[in-house]
């Protein structure tokens, strides 16, 4: 199983160096990988159908509990087949669709990356591994949505999608780590044993909330649904693959995967039923008012995802069966419709359904595929969609008493809208009279229309032989979601019952709605008004506010004036220090412990303070340099007084050299300009004096801290024994801490080199102003 993930990743990487060749001659090899993988997973069907589950484990980061744990059960297999199967069709399709595109190779690189990430996501049995692949799908989706990166709308949509799904990813990570901590294991297959622990844990609502946020953002549930219509800026194969059939179902997969562990509580049931129910109805109604084919499909996709969330929320045996079948039903017809839309767009250059009609005369097989998909989506008896719809009604009719009516009504209302929307997308462009402008159209290359035809045809075949697909695939899918036997038996005919009546009512009402609903640009304008108060506006509003805030924040702190940075840093430090000093209590001064005061010291300090005053106030550079050297010599004398002869000598020589240095460089420069107003200078002197006072207080406090002398004593005692010397300061430098000194000299050398190169480097004439 691991190789299936790696194969795509390796192909993705290989496209970087060899991409150019794939653009032309080798491009037929591109769909090879998904085809092989699809056949590989087809081979698993009989084994998994007999109830087997496959595991594979490779050590990766055992210390963090992250191992490459892979697991293949019914649910994973369904998704693997969708990913590779639909993927095969998409790869063939996209090769023609994007022929001659300058970024052809890049596109397939992203597509491979996505396919691997998605396979990894559905196969991983470790929640951290799952998260990694989850994020990878978001990232590859970002690149694919923004594929036409020269269009601003495309870039914006990509950013929105990444922001929403990325944000959801963070929540998901938090939720997954929490669940791992509560259960004590990161293996998904082991989590189910800790179901009771997790359900009764006080953090259960938090875990559930976080995981829901992850799933809802990914699967475009209200109020995070708006990124999906935006994602339709991607090339059509991407919309078909990622944003209807596979990636958006990752959220559903997550809920299904954690269904056995987390479901069964009121919180689970009512949240999912509420959000899913609202989303499916809301976006089904929205889809009726759209005139862009892709937009219609986007909203019906959201609606279908809402339906799946809703079913998982109901959580009964029937609901799980319905969900596991509906995933497949929806993937088949929605991918078909998207691919057909792509062909229509590719050939006619428009996706506006008010302009498209009668295309069946020129695009015969395409119209057939679209018709099959539309019928499946409408749930006409003998299509796979009919079975899916039946199971949904079955599920809503088998819940606890007082909910039956509400849930069934919501489901029926949604389905009526979906029927109409499906007809709008699948029938409307192909029937009626052919406008003149489209008469010269001809069928595209067969690699473009065969994949949708196969997918649409499968909807019919599965509908005619539901027992076949049910026994081999959906039964085990439902079992792995439900974690038990669901006793599922799919059949065309269930007898004449309420479900059948509801199905027929839906179909009739939907058809009626299709005929009376005439979408137009005005209606789009009308429905767009609702978007003003929709979550999208709120999100973008927040995003803009954050940008504005960070702009102001940066402009305040990073305004380009060094002194203002200094001011802020110093004020902040003062604030912190005052707070700490305030906390630490009063200062005490014990005069007896101090060394006696001598007249020399007082004299030196007075000279020093005088020189300091001159440095601060003089307008002449030379005066200030001389005063600086006086300060240095005074400090040198202080070292002499306080028994530090080495320091005194060093300070003396360094001070001399610094003065020479200053004079060498500065004596040519003019005198200081007075650049600050009196007010600024007063303000600065207050800040400065405050800082000095704070440090004095700290020094006073330090003076009365007990001093730890172990280290000093060690040096003192061992000076002669270990280092055979008597000047301890020098011994520390040249012996005990010799390596430090060694590197200090290296630093000195670097400084000298810096000075040397800075001066030897001649200014170019252009640099001189």
């Amino acid at each position: 199983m691991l190789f299936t993930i790696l194969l795509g990743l390796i192909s993705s990487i290989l496209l970087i160096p060899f991409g150019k060749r794939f653009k032309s001659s080798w491009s037929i090899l591109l769909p090879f990988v998904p085809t092989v993988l699809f056949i590989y997973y087809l081979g698993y069907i009989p084994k998994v159908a007999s109830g087997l589950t496959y595991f594979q484990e490779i050590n990766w980061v055992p210390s963090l509990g992250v191992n490459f744990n892979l697991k293949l059960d019914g649910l994973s297999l369904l998704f693997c087949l969708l990913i590779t199967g639909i993927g095969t069709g998409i790869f063939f399709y996209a090769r023609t669709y994007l022929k001659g595109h300058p970024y052809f190779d890049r596109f397939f690189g992203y597509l491979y990356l996505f396919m691997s990430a998605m396979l990894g996501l559905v196969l991983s049995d470790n929640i951290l591994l799952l998260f990694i692949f989850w994020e990878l799908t978001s990232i590859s989706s970002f690149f694919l949505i923004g594929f036409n990166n020269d269009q601003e709308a495309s870039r914006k949509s990509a950013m929105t999608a990444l922001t929403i799904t990325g944000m959801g990813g963070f929540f998901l990570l938090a939720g997954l780590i929490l669940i791992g901590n509560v259960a004590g294991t990161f293996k998904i297959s082991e989590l189910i044993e800790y179901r009771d622990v997790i359900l009764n844990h006080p953090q259960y609502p938090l875990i559930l909330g976080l995981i829901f946020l992850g799933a809802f953002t990914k699967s475009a549930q209200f109020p995070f649904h708006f990124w999906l219509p935006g994602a339709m800026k991607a090339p059509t194969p991407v919309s078909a693959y990622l944003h209807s059939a596979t990636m958006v179902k990752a959220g559903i997969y997550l809920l299904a995967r954690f269904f056995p562990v987390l479901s069964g509580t009121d919180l689970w049931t009512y949240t999912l039923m509420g959000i899913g129910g609202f989303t499916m109805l809301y976006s089904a109604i929205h889809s009726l008012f759209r005139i862009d084919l892709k937009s219609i499909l986007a909203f019906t996709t959201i609606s279908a995802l809402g339906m799946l969330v809703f079913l998982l929320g109901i959580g009964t045996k029937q609901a799980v069966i319905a969900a596991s079948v509906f995933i497949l039903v929806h993937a088949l017809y929605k991918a078909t419709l998207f691919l057909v839309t792509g062909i229509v767009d590719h050939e006619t250059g428009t996706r506006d359904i008010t302009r498209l009609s009668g295309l069946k005369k020129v695009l015969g097989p395409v119209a057939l595929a679209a018709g099959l998909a539309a019928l499946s989506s409408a749930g006409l008896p003998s299509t796979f969609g009919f079975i899916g719809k039946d199971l949904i009604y079955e599920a809503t009719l088998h819940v606890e008493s007082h909910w039956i009516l509400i849930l069934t009504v919501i489901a029926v209302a949604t389905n009526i809208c979906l029927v109409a929307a499906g007809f709008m997308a699948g029938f409307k462009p192909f029937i009626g009279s052919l406008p003149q402008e489209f008469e010269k159209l001809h069928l595209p290359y067969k690699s473009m229309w065969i994949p949708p035809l196969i997918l649409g045809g499968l909807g019919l075949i599965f509908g005619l032989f539901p027992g076949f697909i049910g026994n081999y695939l959906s039964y085990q899918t439902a079992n792995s979601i439900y974690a038990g036997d669901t006793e599922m038996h799919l059949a065309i005919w269930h007898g004449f019952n309420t479900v059948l009546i509801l199905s027929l009512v839906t179909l009739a009402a939907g058809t009626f709605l299709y005929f009376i609903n005439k979408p137009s640009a005005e209606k789009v304008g009308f429905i767009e008004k609702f978007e003003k108060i929709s979550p999208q506006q709120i999100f973008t509003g927040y995003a803009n506010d954050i940008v504005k805030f960070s702009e102001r924040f940066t402009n305040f702190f990073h305004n380009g004036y060094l002194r203002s940075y200094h001011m802020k840093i110093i004020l902040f430090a003062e604030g912190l220090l005052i707070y700490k000093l305030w906390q630490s209590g009063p200062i005490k001064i014990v005069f007896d412990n101090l060394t006696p005061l001598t007249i020399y010291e007082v004299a030196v300090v007075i000279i020093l303070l005088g020189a300091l005053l001159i440095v601060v106030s003089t307008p002449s550079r030379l005066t200030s340099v001389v005063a600086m050297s006086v300060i240095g010599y005074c400090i040198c004398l202080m070292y002499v007084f306080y028994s530090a002869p080495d320091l005194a000598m060093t300070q003396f020589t360094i001070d001399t050299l610094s003065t020479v240095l200053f004079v060498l460089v500065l004596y040519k420069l003019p005198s200081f300009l007075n650049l600050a107003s009196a007010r600024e200078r007063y303000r600065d002197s207050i800040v400065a004096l405050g800082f000095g006072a704070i440090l004095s207080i700290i020094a006073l406090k330090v003076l009365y801290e007990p001093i730890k002398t172990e280290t000093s004593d060690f040096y003192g005692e061992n000076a002669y024994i270990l280092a055979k010397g008597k000047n301890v300061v020098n011994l520390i430098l040249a012996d005990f801490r010799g390596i430090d000194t060694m590197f200090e000299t290296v630093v000195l050398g670097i400084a000298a080199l810096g000075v040397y190169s800075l001066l030897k480097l001649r200014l170019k004439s252009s640099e001189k102003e």
Partner: protein
Amino acid sequence: MRSIILQTATRYLLPILLLFSFFLLLRGHYYPGGGFVGGLVASIAFVLHSFANGTEATMKILKRKPLSLIPVGLGISAVSVVLPTFFGLPPMTGLWWEEKVPVIGMIGSALFFDLGVYLVVIGVVLTILFTISLTKD
């Protein structure tokens, strides 16, 4: 800035100050002094000479660019750090001659280390000051 008195004085001061700086270096292990101070005093000697006679004249006495003293000094220090490992001891272990040398005291690898520091300091200070004074703009 050329004055005869200073020129004459530095002619004698330079060797005396250099001797003094070497003295500071050697006795650093027992009394205040050491590589840093010694190097700084030696640099001051050269700087004083350059003030009196011009930097070019001082460069003539040095014969080489002061920059070349830096790698030499670093090399000596590094050798004294690594040397003990050839005797199977950890780096930086002090190695000592058994006999005491008059005036200096005992000679050991730490002294060589200090000598390296001394040379680096002279190299650094003179490089900085001489490049500045030789650059005209």
